[in-house]
């Protein structure tokens, strides 16, 4: 494999992948090989010769970054019922800007005046209590980074044919933020949980009154009433003035616009935990309460629709995450899975969190199939698509976490493939 690549760089795996340590040691001037922008600057005054613009009260991205936006897909009969996707393929690092965090609403974004909002905890408790926002802001808080992923993310992967759209329009129902709020355990202590209470029904104050049952054990473990996202108050589309945060759990359980936790000795068997967000298997039975999101990874660049317009060095990079803990390894293949090289992981690697992986790749105009495969600390390895389908059938709709593959053709055009 190695001799087809005209490079003196140490090989990582077949078809041009270079050892990850090459980047880390910095012993090779990789930067010089990357493309420089070839488009001339627009005919505008030299910014060094005219004073710049003034201050703004709330900053916006550069006007030159208009393509870094959420694409949305909604039901025309109910425009508040739909999805918008995080443009993962246009982002770097691991923190998703608040304005680009994916959205999944079932009946629109409510406009909630925080002064009128209460979180009520009732049902099987000793002292039912209501908490105002002002009260919650006085409670001990903590911050953590974690991802939120819709259970339906990547569901186009179940299709018979690979969808040719920007990879984020398939896999972008996931985002990663630093969340800050009040540990639910503190509030449960205050209301006094009845020992018979094993479930809590979390309800949102939206036009869907979305309700989901979650185990009390999760609430008293690492759950949070999140009030802040990436340092600022949560935005309306992500649950202002508060949402339930259940690190590692599927997104729909992390109820936005949260106003009620009703403790009970049984799950509600609400519509979204019975007729939706359950996975029908080939044998006609269904998986239910699949709360944890499994190990997953995605190459964000190069990805579908991108073009490698010069031969030379590129960085294959992407994101990996698992709802069950830390990512311990991401492997990358450039030959459709015949050989794999271990990617470098940007640190710190945190549990239930996006982990950025990178690997240098020497592309010399050869056809290639790029894949990434993640392993988490429980030892679970991201499955190939045919393995997932053999195990779960084709009608599960939710919890698709198979390896994603891209073909690079001899002109450098990248397309989505199943291999």
């Amino acid at each position, binding site marked *: 494999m190695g001799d087809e690549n005209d490079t003196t760089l140490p090989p990582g795996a077949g078809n041009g992948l270079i050892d990850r340590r090459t980047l880390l040691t910095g012993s090779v001037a990789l930067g010089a090989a990357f493309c420089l922008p070839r488009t001339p600057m627009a005919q505008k005054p030299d910014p060094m010769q005219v004073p710049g613009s003034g201050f703004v009260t709330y900053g916006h991205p550069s006007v030159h970054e208009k393509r870094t936006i959420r694409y949305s897909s909604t039901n025309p009969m109910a425009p508040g019922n739909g999805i918008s996707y995080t443009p993962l393929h246009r982002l770097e690092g691991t923190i998703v800007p608040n304005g680009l965090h994916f959205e999944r609403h079932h009946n629109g974004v409510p406009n909630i005046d925080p002064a009128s909002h209460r979180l009520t905890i009732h049902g099987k408790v000793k002292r039912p209590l209501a908490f105002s926002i002002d009260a919650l802001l006085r409670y001990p808080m903590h911050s953590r980074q974690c991802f939120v992923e819709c259970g339906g993310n990547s569901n186009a992967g179940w299709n018979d044919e690979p969808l040719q759209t920007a990879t984020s329009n398939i896999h972008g129902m996931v985002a990663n933020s630093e969340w800050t709020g009040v540990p639910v355990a503190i*509030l449960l202590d205050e209301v006094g949980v009845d020992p018979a209470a094993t479930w809590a029904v979390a309800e949102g104050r939206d036009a869907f009154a979305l309700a989901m049952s979650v185990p009390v054990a999760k609430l008293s473990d690492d759950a949070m009433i999140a009030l802040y996202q990436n340092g600022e108050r949560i935005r309306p589309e992500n649950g202002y003035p508060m949402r339930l945060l259940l690190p590692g759990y599927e997104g729909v359980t992390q109820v936005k616009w949260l106003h009620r936790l009703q403790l009970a000795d049984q799950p509600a*068997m609400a519509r979204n935990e019975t007729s939706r967000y359950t996975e029908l298997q080939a044998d006609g*039975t269904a998986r239910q309460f699949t709360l944890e999101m499994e190990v997953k990874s995605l190459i964000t660049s190069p990805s579908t629709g991108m073009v490698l317009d010069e031969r030379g060095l590129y960085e294959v990079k992407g994101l990996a995450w698992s709802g069950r803990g830390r990512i311990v390894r991401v492997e990358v293949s450039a030959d459709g899975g015949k050989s794999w090289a271990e990617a470098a992981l940007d640190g710190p690697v945190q549990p239930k969190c996006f982990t950025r992986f990178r690997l240098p790749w020497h592309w010399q105009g050869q056809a290639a199939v790029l894949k990434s495969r993640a392993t988490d600390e429980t030892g679970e390895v991201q499955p190939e698509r045919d393995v997932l389908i053999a195990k779960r059938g084709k009608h599960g709709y939710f919890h698709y976490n198979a390896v994603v593959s891209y073909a690079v053709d001899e002109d450098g055009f990248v397309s989505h493939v199943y291999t």
Partner: protein
Amino acid sequence: MCTPRRARAWMVGLLLTAVVQAQEGPPLGPGLGQPLDERTLLALDRTVFPDGTGLPQGSGDVSLGEALFAERCAHCHGEAGAGGTAPELAYAQMPLDSEWPDQTIGSYWPYATTVFDFVRRAMPMEAPGSLSDEQTYHLTAYLLHLNGLHERDAPLTRQVLITLRMPNRDGFRWVDVTKPPPEADRTTAP
């Protein structure tokens, strides 16, 4: 950064200090929750559970439900729930283990109480919360009738809704939570 465990350790520290001062330790937080009176609590209790908790008294009539459905629901769910921009609700033809399974109320939903709960909280999409409990019973009666699970002439009472055993009741395997044994419908968290 403070982890939940550390936050709890800090709070337990507070608790231990306070125990020396008082017979009963203070709550872990500042204790700013407001007590609720009975009336407020009753108004909150809108979740309907499979055992009937939260289900109001009332009775549903299939024919009244049919008329309501035509007026309020058919524009999205199709005539008699056959499907439209919103999911099909009845008339499952293909079984769940087939190539193109139909996941309707009758073929897929494990509990009939869910129909009442969901219709009352979220339907119709353009005017959620606008249906009375009685209207919700009528619609539930009609939807169950469409699925061959309730006679046209029988009233759908609270008791009927609780005891109705849906065809796919045992079709679900719990994954991240331990499913209670079949004889006990009450559930246990992990």
